[in-house]
Each structure stands twice: as C-alpha cells, then as structure tokens.
C-alpha cells in the first residue's frame, strides 16, 4: 500500500483522510515557493521534483491567462484526461498559502476531488499551528533542509 508522508506532521492526518475519501492516486502539498510539505503516492524524489516544477509551470501559464483576462489567478484548475485527471487548488492557512496537486483515476471524479479538497483545506486550516512561524529555507542551509525534507517524504 502506498504511504502518505509529511515533512510537517500537522498536515498528515487531513491529507490521509483526503486521499482515502477522494480516491486520489498522487497528491503533493506544497507552499507557493515550491517547498513540499507532504506527499502521497510518489516513490521517487525525482518524481516529486518534476511534479512540483510542472505545477509551477501550469500555475505560471494559467496566471498569465488570468492576467490577460484581467482577473485574479484561478483558485482551482482541473485537467481531465482519458484515464487520469489533474486537479490543482490553492488556499490560505494560518501558516501561509498552500497548494495541492492531485492526480486521480477513473475510480474517482473531479466532483469528488473538489468536494474533499474543500474538507482538506478546512482540515489543514484547523490543524495549522499558529504560534510557530514557518522556517525560512536560507541559502546557507538549503541543501541540508532539502535532504531532510526528502528523507521525511520517502522515509530514508
């Protein structure tokens, strides 16, 4: 069975519940800066990095479309394929903005993912610690932080 792993423990329970209820195959929870907080379904660090980079590219492209339409950035995006769909959603928590990338298969649907995404956002808002500020990843300890995050995400 694929495990759900988190760098920040408070994200784990809401994410596990979301994965089970929505039937998500892959899920990445990250900050707008690209720092991954939790993941489900990925087995290799390189896949997480690729997904995070592609997510950034999608958000940049659609952000530009939104700018051309003279409106705010899209809150959620869905790309429906024949077998799989990709859902991207953003929301605010007391720890700052978070983004979720969800890949779902034919045993789920965009309706289900959307429904439980709302619950995921509410769960994370409720679970986010307010007193502790998120650590800034400084250039000096960037590699160390990255290695620690990857170790947490893949249990190595």
């Amino acid at each position: 069975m694929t495990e759900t792993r988190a760098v920040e423990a408070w994200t784990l329970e809401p994410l596990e519940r979301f994965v089970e209820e929505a039937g998500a195959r892959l899920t990445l929870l990250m900050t707008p800066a690209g720092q991954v907080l939790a993941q489900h379904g990925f087995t290799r660090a390189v896949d997480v990095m690729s997904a995070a980079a592609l997510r950034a590219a999608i958000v940049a492209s659609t952000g530009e479309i939104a700018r051309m339409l003279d409106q705010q950035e899209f809150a959620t995006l869905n790309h429906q394929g024949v077998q799989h769909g990709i859902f991207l959603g953003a929301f605010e928590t007391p720890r700052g903005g978070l983004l979720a990338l969800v890949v779902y298969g034919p045993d789920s649907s965009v309706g289900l993912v959307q429904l439980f995404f709302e619950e995921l956002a509410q769960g994370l808002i409720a679970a986010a610690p307010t007193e502790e500020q998120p650590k800034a990843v400084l250039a000096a300890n960037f590699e160390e932080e990255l290695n620690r995050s990857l170790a947490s995400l893949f249990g190595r």
Partner: protein
Amino acid sequence: MSTVFRQVLDQITRVRGVRGAMLVAGEDGLIVAESLMEGVRGNAVAALAASLQKRFRQAMEVAAGGMSHFLHLQGEGGTLIIVPAPDGILVVTVGTPDMNVGLVRLEMLRAAELIS
C-alpha cells in the same frame, strides 16, 4: 439553465416530499442543472451520487445485469434516487422518507428520456 432542463427539474420537484432534483455529469460528478431546497448540499450529493452510480454500474456489469435503470436508497432521514440517462447524465432526486417514490420514478424516467 436551459428551458428543457428547468422543465424536467420542475416536473420532479413538484412531487410532494421532494427536496431537490439535479442533473449531474455522471463521469465528473458535477452539477449540470439543479433545483434544490435550502440546506441540501448539491455539490456533495452530486459527487457522491455519481461515485455510487459508477460502483453500481460496475457491479451490474460484473453480475451480467446490463445497464441499471434506477437506483433507490432509502434512509431513516431521507431518500436518494438516481436514474442514468443514456448520454451519461444522471437524474438525481433527494427527498423525505415518505416521498411518493412511484411518481418520482415516473417523472425521473421521463426526464432522462427528454434530456437525452
């Protein structure tokens, strides 16, 4: 909402005990058209009803039962009925436990025929 959709939903919601009716995209679980009373979580019902219908369809296929025409769930607090239309749209109705299921079924089958 298109006139046809509004008409078919009005026919269903006119029946006593009906709390709401929706047309749902079966594959996506998203609402196409709706006529719901306050307090009915349309998007949740749509997503879960579509998921349920998908599972039942798979079960029917495995059991060589063909396409399901009518799905009726009776709970203590309410009733959920799903009728799949041939083009992938689901007609979904929620109502009270004492809703006139026979009449609702008739209206839903008529709605499925009209929208396809």
